[in-house]
């Protein structure tokens, strides 16, 4: 389990990183926390000739308010989701999800931008960008752009990122007083990839749900927003009947893949149970 030999370049600026990437072509990978990439290298599932270390690029760091958004730098580590007061205040869903992301040693190194770019469908943070209606800021050889999370996740480990592009930050709309959120997952052991997990953000007037965004992970090839289910909840309060309707609607939104341990019907069942429990809790907080 030793990686194939590779060259290493530590970029000091975004320009340096992009230049190095352009010169090396497709045989190069950016590396930050390395919590997914390094195991892949050791297993020789990936064998790039060049690793471009972006962890010393200061422009990719920091969490700050920018307009109606919280700008979370791509290098923000998972553990900072727990410790950073701005995140607790303005993106509390990320704060709530963070303790479920792997184990402390991984959270100390893994980065938010890396997690979103890797787009593991079983990961917590990519799915949360959907629930939050976040926007992904990208820079590449042809300049910068912002992509809505809804448009970012394309297929299994496939995103809107084009070759040579880099995530610089994630913009999360600031959490407001009329909003409520919930996060939970069902994992065999604490820190494992969940059998199913979910995050949700609701905007309400009194008990009435005006808007709700619900996103699941570990249910398919990408993090999955369940729009049909959301629709059953908008305009009403979270009573038992509404919750049951939402649970029933999940079947239309999810098509879990077959796996040797969790059959699709079981995953759908677990998603329903989880959704019911979370909506119940969300209703109690109204």
């Amino acid at each position: 389990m030793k990686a194939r030999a590779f060259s290493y370049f530590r970029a000091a600026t975004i320009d340096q990183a992009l230049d190095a990437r352009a010169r090396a072509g497709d045989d190069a990978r950016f590396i930050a926390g390395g919590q997914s990439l390094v195991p892949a290298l050791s297993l020789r599932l990936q064998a790039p000739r060049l690793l471009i270390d972006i962890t010393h690029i200061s422009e990719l760091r920091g969490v700050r308010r920018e307009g109606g958004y919280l700008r979370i730098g791509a290098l923000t580590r998972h553990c900072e989701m727990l410790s950073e007061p701005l995140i607790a205040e303005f993106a509390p869903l990320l704060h709530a999800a963070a303790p479920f992301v792997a184990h402390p040693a991984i959270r100390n190194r893994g980065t938010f931008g890396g997690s979103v770019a890797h787009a593991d469908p079983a990961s917590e943070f990519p799915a949360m960008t959907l629930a939050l209606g976040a926007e992904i800021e990208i820079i590449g050889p042809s300049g910068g752009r912002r992509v809505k999370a809804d448009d970012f996740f394309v297929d299994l480990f496939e995103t809107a990122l084009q070759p040579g592009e880099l995530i610089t930050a994630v913009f999360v709309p600031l959490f407001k007083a009329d909003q409520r959120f919930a996060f939970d997952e069902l994992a065999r052991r604490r820190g494992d990839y969940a059998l199913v997990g979910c995050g949700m953000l609701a905007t309400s007037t009194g008990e009435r749900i005006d808007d709700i965004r619900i996103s699941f992970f570990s249910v398919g090839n990408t993090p999955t927003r369940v729009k049909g289910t959301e629709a059953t909840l908008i305009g009403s309060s979270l009573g038992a009947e509404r919750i049951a309707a939402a649970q029933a609607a999940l079947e239309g939104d999810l098509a879990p893949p077959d796996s040797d341990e969790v059959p699709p019907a079981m995953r759908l069942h677990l998603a329903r149970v989880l959704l019911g429990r979370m909506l119940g809790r969300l209703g109690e907080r109204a």
Partner: protein
Amino acid sequence: MSAPLTSLDRPNSYIGRSVPRPNAKRLLAGRGRYVSDLRLPRMLHAAFLRSPHAHAKIISIDVAQARALEGVHLVAIGADLAKICTPWTGTLDHFKGMTSAPQLPLPLDRVVWAGQAVVAVVAESRAIAEDALELIEIDYEDLPVVADIDSAREAGGPLINPGSGNNVCFRSQLDNGSVDDAFAHAAHVVEEEFCFGRHTAVTLEPRAIVAEYDPAAGALTVHHATQTPYQFQDLYSRHYGIPEARVRVIATDIGGSFGMKLHVYHEDMAVVGLSILLGRPVKYVADRMESFVSDIHARDHRVRARMALDAEGEILAMDVLDLTAIGAFSTYPRTSVVEGNQVIRLMGAPYRFKNYRATLEVIFQNKVQTSQYRAVGHPIACAVTERLVDMAAVKLGLDPLAIRAQNLIADDAYPQTSPTGYRFEALSHQACLKRLHEIMDYDALRAEQAELRKSGVYHGIGIAAFVEITNPSPAFYGVGGARISSQDGAILSLTPSGEVRCLISVTEQGQGTEAIISQIVADQLGLAQEHVKVITGDTEVTPHGGATWACRGAGIGGETALQAARALRRNILEIAALILQEQPSALDIIDGEVVDAGTRNQRMPISEIARIAYFRSDTLPPGTQAQLTVSHHFAPQGYPFAFTNGIQGCSLEVDVETGFIKMLKHFIVEDCGRVINPMLVDEQLRGGIVQGLGAALFEECRYSETGQLVNGSLADYLVPMPMEMPDIVIAHVETPTADTELGAKGCGEAGTAAASACVLNAVNDALTPFNATINSIPITPAKVLKALKRF
């Protein structure tokens, strides 16, 4: 402490005291010296190309490009090593009729499991060796794969070993009393089929070996992360034709073993051969992915069993069929049939019924070899027996504790012979049961369970009594022709400054062997423990012995140390008596000082005796030859095994919507005879229980229909982790064995033996309101939800 006072209850006795392990600080400080830390001059690194097929013919192997890669020193295939290594066969004579195919380090023309090493590369670094593996091309021709018990037993189905008539490795039958008659007249019969998944040891430190052959001396030194250095000294000597005295096996610090590190692995044998071919040290450390496909697996049993009871709930008979699937051959040198053999012999062991029948069938399949792993056979026999007892209790309307109290062998009924032929010297089932009732606060747990059910919270309570095999005599392996010792040896020296060095054949893998040996020696000699240095695990310096297997370190190794220490004490006091003009019997040693036995007045330090004996022997009476080094061997006699017993209980919660199980609390009352170090015994029990809970809830090596291990990584193979583990409450009953002075028996398997049975019973108890049952482990959310028909 129910044991009577003995000569062991002396002032400043270390036996029975929780003293820290002398090596713990060194290991915690990162100062351990594991085989993987070892860097020898001129050392090279081996890597292996493994078969992607579970069963295939090797058509051709092209290694030309790999050989040409810079930094590669040797590429070896099966034929290269077959020239210098004789084949091995994993059978034992006392398992009548068992068969197994001969094995070589690397296969010649056929692979029999996915992950089998086929080609070895030795290079300047492991990374270069792995680069070279990518350049090797092997042409395979698929053969039919036997990947489960049913297809293996199918008449006319594919055969794993060409030339054999079927895929059966071994069959055995036990028949005692009148089973058919008992079932015919029974008021109640309970019956169930059980499945026990394959799992594996997952030691923190994987398998590791550095072999160093010196062609000039014709000598082989092997640094080997093994529990049994002497066994490997013998095997390397015989299979490579090197005189035993020129083979040295060193097993220093080892990061866990659990039975996994005492078997012959193809890679390890190959590494020795590679070092011989190169005349240089060669290192191989299995990585985690390799461990999953090449370490032994264990369990994999399907058991059909029934139990007959009379109208009052008295157990009358058991009838058992155990089908167990091993690998494509039987493991060497301890075989792959011991587990099945212990399953059928431990069935019903805590209970006093007399009619018993069992059939064991051990079956080959195209998977990695299975063999002895912690609590060999115990968890299966215990789970089957205890589940049937619970089923009977439900049928009869009896409380699980009450039916056990009724049927467990009475504490005053010993000696006893079990229906399967095991002889019990003295056990304490009833005392343990009473104690468990107290520490569980059982009645309160039942009341809480009933109350919570009303609000839709489903708690389950599980109980499991067990018997553990410890202190094995030659009846275990020796009688079968294996050169595996059941005795141990110790050499004790008083050093010139009055300290004691103890070289002993039992070994240390993190369980605290060196701690208890130093406690026993210090205790018997009347020394401070820090003045005893214990040295283990080097065949060049420590005497030949069994080392670590089954459960024997304290019981056999401890007695060896005790007898050796008493011999050295006699010799020290003899010299002291000459110097002090006393009778030896009038003297004693306390805290390193020779004292008057009666008054305890200090006479002289033993360091002074050492000084005189080593440097001023001219001052001793003429003709005196001080013997301040003694050696002693001890082989267990009397009962062939020192059986121990205990009982476990647990409470847990089943989430009936998700199928998730939350362990709430676990309890054990255990009787391992004389407890030498309570802290170490308690942690052995806790560790064992956690491994049992892993088997019950998480651990399983899952295979595809084509014989591919589908969860061979730590992300997919779930080991128990602290967050999911409950608090474990421990109590002891002490019934020392009379076969030794020390009276210690083993405790290494006790936790694992019954933990999974407890959980199986508790989950079924929780599901009672739903008329749902579960009969296989691990108990996954999928199995619970299936049983509850939730999807």
